[in-house]
Structure formats: structure tokens, C-alpha cells
């Protein structure tokens, strides 16, 4: 039996080798769309919920997913390839989408090219960015349920005395910039006027912080039991928690949270602009948005998507999360991004 299996696999391998040049030739003639997006669990969910159904609908097309660490890396690639873009469709944080639009790196999309654009609310098709909102996520407390059996309820739990040296606060990036307005509001301030109250509150958590680092990421530290609680993203936390039952959980604190919007964009000068627009339309369809939300716990942006109650409770757009949502002016925050990061470094981490 074993010998037969080996013979079969040998025969299969020989057939595969024989067919390889033809497969390659076919792939070379096929229009290939390059989609650039976040690596890790996002990539996995995107490939399964968005790309795989698209390929079933368009059998004569190939899609290559080019993973990136973060939106800033995407912006760097778009700038470098400005003269000859190799990226057709790009997924980015809204702040980077605004910047890339200003640099004329992203092409505008019309209702004619992307019919599902009409189903995206106004906030998801802003005047200052050419892309369209694809998904939403919330800043959340992500914790190890093996160490903290009862879910934390407040951002103040980051300073809980029992958690000395067990907190991970990767705040030298968008998470820190998004957390500051929340903490500022908790301390009675307004982030547009001053972030001093938020910085003071963040400093109070410092004695508990084992790592301020984004690398290795919070979720790895939680799984390795190097940290027990941290500031992370709700969708990613829930997705990793589902893959590792009984370990990681995410919760939106009672004081509220902010949303991070991911946009889907067509690169300016794309060689496959029409196909790229078709792909974006597919990504924004009701079925794809629902499938991606089920798989990745990211909130859908298509207003027509109706999610089951069990799912919508835990993600952005669901009633429980919506009640705790704090709206941010991302244009204002983008303008202060670098300065806020520098202040976090100096007045919190190095203090």
C-alpha cells in the first residue's frame, strides 16, 4: 500500500513536472492583479474571504498578495514604484490613504467603476482620500484569559497593581496615537486642545509595562505568557484567540474606544485599472464583507451587511461596540502623528 502510494506520488510528480512549463506559460498570459495588504492573520483571512471567491468568479485571472508590515511600508513602495507601479490594489490605514492621495499615488474611483461604492457611508468615501473604506476595527484591551480569568472592564486595568511587569503597551505607533485621545477624555481633557492629561495617565501605567515594543507583537507575548494584558486591536485579538482557544481575548473597555479604518485603493497608473476596480467592487460586496467579518472580526463598511447578533456584538458596527465608540478626527491626528509619538517616547517611555 505504501509502495503504491509512493508510486502514485512519483507519477504525479512526473506529470506535474511535465505540465509545469505549460502552467507557467498560462500564468504568464493571464492578467495578474497584485494586491498589497497587511501580513499575518489579516492576509490569511483576506486570501480566504476575498481573493479565493474572486478567483472562482474570474477563472481567467490571477491574484498575487504582497504582504507588508504596515501602511507606512505600503506608502514607501507606492512612492518607489511611482513611475512603474507594480501594485494594483492597496490596503492601508486611512491616515496613509489620505497622504497617498495627496501625493497622487492613488486613483479616484467612481460609482460606475465600483457599483458597491454607493453602499459605503459618507465617512468611508471621504473627500480627502481616493480609496474606499474596506473594514473597521477597534482599539481594545487584549488579555490572556489564563492569567486574568475575569475580563478587564476599564483602560485603568492597565495600571492594576497585580499586573506589575505583565503589561505590553506598544504605543510607539498608531495604537499609541489612538489611545491618547481616549485617555485624554478619561482625564477630563480634549485631545484637540492638549494631550497632556492623556500622557499623564499613560505614565501612571508605566510601572506595569514589561514591553513598549511592537516587536515581537503583543499577541505573541500573550501566547508566550510574557505579558498578561495589552493594548491591541479587537479583530486581530479575537482572530488569534479563536485560533488558540482558551488563551487570548479582546474586550472594548467601558470608557470607550476608537475605530481604525482600513481602506482599499486603486494604485495610480495601475496596468490593470479596470480589473482592480472590479476586485475592489467584489471586496465591498455584501457577501464578501460578511465573509471577511466572520473570518477576521473586522467590522464591515458596506451599510447593507447584516451580521448575526452573536458576531456583531463583538465587532465594530455592532450595537455593543457602537455604544462605546469615540469618533476621532483622523485628519487632525495625522497632522500630529509624529509629534505625539515623540512625546510618548520622551514623556512616557523615557520618563
Amino acid at each position: 500500500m505504501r509502495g503504491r502510494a509512493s508510486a502514485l506520488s512519483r507519477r504525479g510528480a512526473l506529470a506535474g513536472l511535465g505540465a509545469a512549463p505549460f502552467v507557467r506559460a498560462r500564468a504568464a498570459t493571464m492578467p495578474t492583479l497584485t494586491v498589497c495588504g497587511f501580513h499575518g492573520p489579516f492576509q490569511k483571512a483576506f486570501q480566504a474571504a476575498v481573493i479565493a471567491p474572486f478567483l472562482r468568479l474570474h477563472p481567467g485571472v490571477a491574484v498575487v498578495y504582497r504582504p507588508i508590515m504596515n501602511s507606512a511600508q505600503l506608502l514607501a513602495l507606492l512612492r518607489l514604484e511611482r513611475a512603474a507601479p507594480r501594485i494594483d490594489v492597496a490596503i492601508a490605514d486611512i491616515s496613509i490613504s489620505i497622504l497617498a492621495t495627496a501625493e497622487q499615488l492613488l486613483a479616484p474611483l467612481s460609482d460606475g467603476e465600483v457599483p458597491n461604492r454607493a453602499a459605503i457611508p459618507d465617512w468611508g468615501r471621504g473627500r480627502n482620500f481616493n480609496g474606499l473604506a474596506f473594514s473597521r476595527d477597534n482599539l481594545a484591551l487584549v488579555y490572556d484569559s489564563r492569567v486574568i480569568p475575569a475580563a478587564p472592564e476599564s483602560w485603568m486595568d492597565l495600571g492594576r497593581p497585580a499586573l506589575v511587569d505583565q503589561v505590553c503597551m506598544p504605543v510607539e505607533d498608531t495604537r499609541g496615537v489612538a489611545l491618547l485621545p481616549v485617555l485624554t477624555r478619561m482625564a477630563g481633557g480634549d485631545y484637540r486642545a492638549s494631550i497632556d492629561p492623556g500622557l499623564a495617565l499613560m505614565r501612571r501605567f508605566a510601572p506595569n509595562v514589561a514591553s513598549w515594543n511592537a516587536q515581537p507583537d503583543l499577541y505573541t507575548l500573550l501566547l508566550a505568557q510574557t505579558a498578561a494584558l495589552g493594548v491591541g486591536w479587537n479583530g486581530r485579538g479575537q482572530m488569534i484567540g479563536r485560533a488558540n482557544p482558551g488563551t487570548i481575548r479582546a474586550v472594548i473597555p467601558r470608557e470607550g474606544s476608537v475605530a481604525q479604518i482600513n481602506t482599499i485603493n486603486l494604485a495610480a497608473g495601475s496596468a490593470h485599472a479596470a480589473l482592480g476596480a472590479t476586485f475592489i467592487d467584489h471586496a465591498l460586496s455584501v457577501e464578501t464583507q460578511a465573509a471577511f467579518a466572520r473570518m477576521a472580526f473586522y467590522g464591515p463598511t458596506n451599510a447593507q451587511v447584516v451580521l448575526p447578533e452573536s458576531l456583531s456584538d463583538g465587532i465594530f458596527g455592532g450595537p455593543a461596540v457602537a455604544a462605546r465608540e469615540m469618533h476621532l478626527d483622523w485628519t487632525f491626528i495625522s497632522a500630529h502623528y509624529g509629534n505625539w509619538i515623540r512625546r510618548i517616547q520622551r514623556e512616557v517611555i523615557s520618563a
Partner: protein
Amino acid sequence: MNDHATTPPRWLQAALLAPGLAALLITFVLPVAWLARVSLLPQAVSLLPQAGPSVPATGLSAGAYARVLGDPFYWWIIGRTLGIGVVTACLAVPMAFPIALFLARSTSAWRGVLVVLAIAPLMTSTVIRTYGWMVILGRHGIINSLLLQTGLLAMPIRLDNGLFATVVALVEILMPYAVISILSTLGRVNVELEQAAALLGARLPQIVLRIILPLALPGLLTAALLVFVLAISSLVTPQLMGGGRVFVLATEIFNATTVTLDWPFAGALSVVLLILFGLVISLYQRVLARMEAQA
């Protein structure tokens, strides 16, 4: 006559040098020139959408340098970067010296294997080795577990995520470079001098201190320089072992490039790092020249 016979003609010298010079031009001079140009750009690559389209601006500006040199925080980072480099070199070289001496003077049939073992860590990625240190120094790592089991500690202490962990990992990671450098120098030291000293009654510590060390000093300096330069340009180890607390020039360059997207600032910091390299290398050459003159 002899000179003519041994010195190749100029055209041949130039032809032989050309490929190396071309490689150096493409892989070093041009990227550094590009970096210098980026560092002199106005801060067009900003996150200020309301300030108008941030298309690459024209003209040159020393603004990024003014921000680096006019801010005490960055002087502190430069000082800390140099400090980490000096401490790492001061620890790695004395630790590498006995290993290199043993390998250089070993007559064992296993010498070749031992040399390979000494430099084998270089075959593993720095990331993997740094992760290894995270396992050793972590909250639930080997050291904390041992200390807890033996009752020396009631609660785990923080050994990772800080300056201590960064230096420990850097010393271990960079030590093989020091071993190779010292080993090559010791190979050129005449063993008969040591044997003569031993015949005249010198003990091993005396031989090491009065014969081997002075003769191996240039090699030790080269090893220190190598470790220092690699330590001050290291990114992965301070990033992973520092827990976000260890700010060095490399981590700031990384942040400015990938987080705050302030490329002129990243360029200016990179140029500062290059100038530091240049200063240290020129200092090294002066010391070496003085030593050779004295010899």
C-alpha cells in the same frame, strides 16, 4: 629593473581595480549619496495633510540636521548608542581573547572542529539568536525559573526588555567576530617567543601579559572596532531585547522611516551614524599608526 618586472603596468592595475571600484560605487557610494540627498530634503514627506499636498518638495534644507543636533533627546540617544557600543566591545573582546588563544595554540586533532564551533553561531540568524535570549532571560525563562526553584527569588524579576538584556545579547551575538579577528592575529604571533620565555622561567600569566598581549594588541583593537561598529548599527537586538525602552540611533532611524515617515530626519540620523563610524575608524587608524611607530 626588478621594480619593472614585479609592478604590473598602470592600465592593468586600473583594470583589476575597476570591478571592485564599480561594485563599491554601486553598493556604497551611490546609496550614501542618495541618503545624504534625502537628509537634505525639506520635510515634504510629512503627515500634514492640511498643509497642502505633500508631493516631494524641491530645494535643499538643513532642517533635519537642525532638529537632530538642536534636540538634547537626540544627543542623549547618540551618547547611549556610543555607550552601548563601548560596553559591548569592552565585554566581548576580553571574553573572546581566551577562546581565540586556546584555539590558536591548540594542537588537538579537533582544533578545526573547535574553530568551527566557535564561529558556528554566525551561521544562525541574529533574529533567532535574539529570540533565544528572550527565552533565557524572559519572565518565565531559564534564569528566572532556576532562581525561583532554588528559592532565591519569590517573584520573577525583569531581566529582559531593557538595557541589560540588550548588552548581554549583543555581547554574545558579536563575540564570534571578535574571536575570528583575534584568532587571525594570534596566528601571526611567533610561538617561539612564547617558548623562549617559558624556557627562561616565565609563567603562563607572564607570557600572556608581557608577550602575547602586546603582540596581539593590533588584533584586539581591530576586534574591538568590529564589535563596536556592529553594536552601534545593530537594530534587531535593541529592538527585540530592549522592550521599546532602549532608544539607539538604529531604532530611531527605523521609526522615522516606517512609523513617522520622516525620511529627511531618518536620513540625517543615518548620516550622523556614518560620521560616528568615520570618527571611530580614524581614531583607530591613528592609534594603530602610533603603535606601529613605537614598534
